[in-house]
């Protein structure tokens, strides 16, 4: 009897159902799910109800209709006779273009400025500090207006354009510059570049294996340069070196021929790069400071040269600190590019806004904008996470 009593007292008595943590947990979760689903269903029901009562058109059929509005700049062929879907694609490519270029340039600027802040040169360090503290603390929208206003009001009209280089003009319509006339030679150059890239990767692998096996090093840097730059140059010369240029010429109101960077694009890119660059500078600085000096000393004690010390010891550890916040900066740069709408660069949001207004289908338009930004952001995150995994320290 006694033993039974002991065992009973060891298993706790079953509590009343409303006190049982397990049952409570399930109840809370059910209530939560019902509340969320109910709210969403209520909102959607209301939306559909309101839309049908006001006779507003719904569905994505409008994407196949003729857009009938012009777009100032486009990477792909577009005319007002194209569809809303095509116009949307123009906006998407413009957004991706400015974001991709912005990410590369902001990374370069941010890295340079981050290193400059760590410089032992007082002037360089202070200048970098002033840059960071100034541009980080002014709202991006104001900066965009500033750059755009500056470009618009200081540059002369096209007929009085400044010629800064032969055939390169600056006016308030943008920077006009010559581009090579399309020729099959450029396909060969591109092909040679790709081949050079592949060959140099193979070479690096082979060189590493040889070093592992024999300890002998191979000057991969020079070989890579030769392959990546040399091959395309050879291809260019072999293909007949077509040097014809499409030169901008003043015709009527504006320049025609060549290519142009519009003030809107320039202001947007400048604003995004300079603003995001400040954050990246701080991230780079933090990353490098996070690696203790003892690591460098240990590397020196092993006899590593300064380049190898940076590449093999400091950088892998710094990157571990740098990459995750850098990803956030890339994401915000991409999303901030939607401020283009304020200065008239035809990005995704700007074109979707026009489309929504011409068709009245705001819900569909906003769903498309949200889906696209979500997709771009997830893609950037995925790429950066893969890179992060590649550079992360393998802990044993």
């Amino acid at each position, binding site marked *: 009897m006694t033993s039974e009593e002991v065992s009973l007292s060891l298993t706790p008595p079953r509590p009343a159902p409303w006190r049982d943590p397990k049952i409570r947990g399930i109840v809370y979760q059910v209530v939560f799910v019902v509340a969320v689903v109910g709210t969403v269903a209520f909102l959607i029901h209301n939306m559909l109800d309101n839309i049908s*009562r*006001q006779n507003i058109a719904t569905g994505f059929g409008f994407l196949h209709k003729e857009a009938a*509005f012009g777009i100032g*700049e486009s990477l792909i062929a577009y005319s007002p006779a194209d569809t809303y879907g095509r116009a949307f694609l123009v906006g998407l490519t413009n957004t991706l273009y400015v974001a991709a270029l912005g990410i590369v340039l902001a990374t370069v600027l941010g890295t340079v400025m981050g290193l400059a802040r760590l410089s032992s040169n007082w002037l360089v360090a202070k200048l970098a500090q002033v840059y960071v503290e100034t541009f980080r603390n002014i709202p991006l929208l104001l900066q965009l207006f500033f750059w755009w206003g500056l470009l618009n009001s200081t540059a002369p009209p096209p007929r009085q354009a400044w010629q800064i280089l032969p055939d390169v003009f600056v006016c308030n319509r943008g920077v006009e510059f010559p581009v090579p006339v399309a020729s099959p030679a450029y396909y060969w150059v591109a092909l040679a570049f790709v081949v050079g890239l592949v060959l140099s990767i193979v070479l690096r692998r082979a060189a590493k294996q040889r070093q592992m096996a024999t300890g002998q090093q191979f000057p991969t840097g020079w070989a890579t340069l030769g392959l990546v730059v040399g091959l395309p140059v050879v291809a260019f010369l072999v293909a007949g070196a077509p040097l014809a240029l499409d030169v901008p010429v003043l015709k*009527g109101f504006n320049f025609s021929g060549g290519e142009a960077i519009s003030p809107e694009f320039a202001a947007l890119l400048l604003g995004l790069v300079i603003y995001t660059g400040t954050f990246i500078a701080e991230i780079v600085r933090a990353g490098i400071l996070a690696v203790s000096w003892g690591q460098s000393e240990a590397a020196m004690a092993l006899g590593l040269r300064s380049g190898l010390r940076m590449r093999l010891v400091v950088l892998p550890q710094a990157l571990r600190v740098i990459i995750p916040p850098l990803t956030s900066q890339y994401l915000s740069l991409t999303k901030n590019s939607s401020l283009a709408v304020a*200065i008239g660069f035809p990005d995704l949001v700007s074109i979707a806004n026009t489309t929504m*207004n011409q*068709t*009245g289908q*705001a819900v569909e338009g906003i769903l498309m904008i949200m889906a696209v930004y979500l997709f771009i952001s997830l893609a950037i995150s995925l790429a950066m996470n893969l890179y992060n995994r590649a550079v992360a320290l393998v802990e044993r």
Partner: protein
Amino acid sequence: MLAFAVLGGIFAARPAVAGPTLDKIKQAGSFSCGVQTGLAGFAQPDSQGVYAGFNVDICKALSAAIFGDPGKVKYVPLTAQQRFTALQSGEVDILSNNTTWTLQRDTELGLNFAPVVFFDGQGFLVAKKLGVKSAKELNGATVCVSPGTTTELNLADYFRANKMEYKPVVIEKLDEVVSAFFAGRCDVYTTDSSGLAAVRLGRASNPDDYVILPERISKEPLAPAVRQGDEQWHDIVDWVIYALMQAEESGITKDNVDDMLKSDDPNIKRILGVTPGMGKDLGLDDKWVYNEIKMVGNYGEIFDRNIGAGSPLKLERGLNAQWTKGGLIYAMPIR
């Protein structure tokens, strides 16, 4: 921001009662009127932030007819892109902002248009020093234009039809797009010709340096708009505007409206509510026309004061003269 306003408005529950707008605004004691962010003569805030202009007076007349007081209006400045969603979502009860009446807006956007208050046409504004005499010479020009307007579409149509090239610079805020034009970013600014006149006069440092080209490339019937689904409210807006036009035709003005109360003309007696009935049918007080004319004035007075001969803009009546004087302003009979 716009996105949230749109979704917020569209998701909001609204009672599905017939004619809810009048009940709602009577209960609130005021209504909201969507106007431009600032266009001289049509709708512009003064230094105290008080809105004045042609489009503002339409809303004042509506307020006078409903409340017997022209001041019961909340003015909401809207860009061309915001205006339709603001109306659809119930943020404003009426748009009085030079919106062009088109089939697509009437159907797909779910709007109902009130009578046209201004017959306009799209034109081009250029700097005189460019030496352009006709819109046909604009091949290759850079054109400043507001997004989401019929103007933007007509522009594309016109250049396509005439096989000309152009580069649009599209900026949402009216203020910014006009500044960009005067800063020289564009060769041409295009909108309704009344808007061009307002911008040339109100924003150019020297208006004589700019010319409006002679071509009118489109018909722009500008009319106030309301949401679909409330016929009573639509009727009220329609007839408040017809009453302004009818008053001018019948010679009833702000100054003589009290004398007109003693008129023997049965038509005028009906309009001014001396013979009761007209107001009641609309759901308003029988003094509705008396109030709007007494407090705001008739259509001609509103036109002259804001954009016509008595204003800096000095627009001709032209198409906007009474039908009896060769124009298109024609009120339906109030009876």
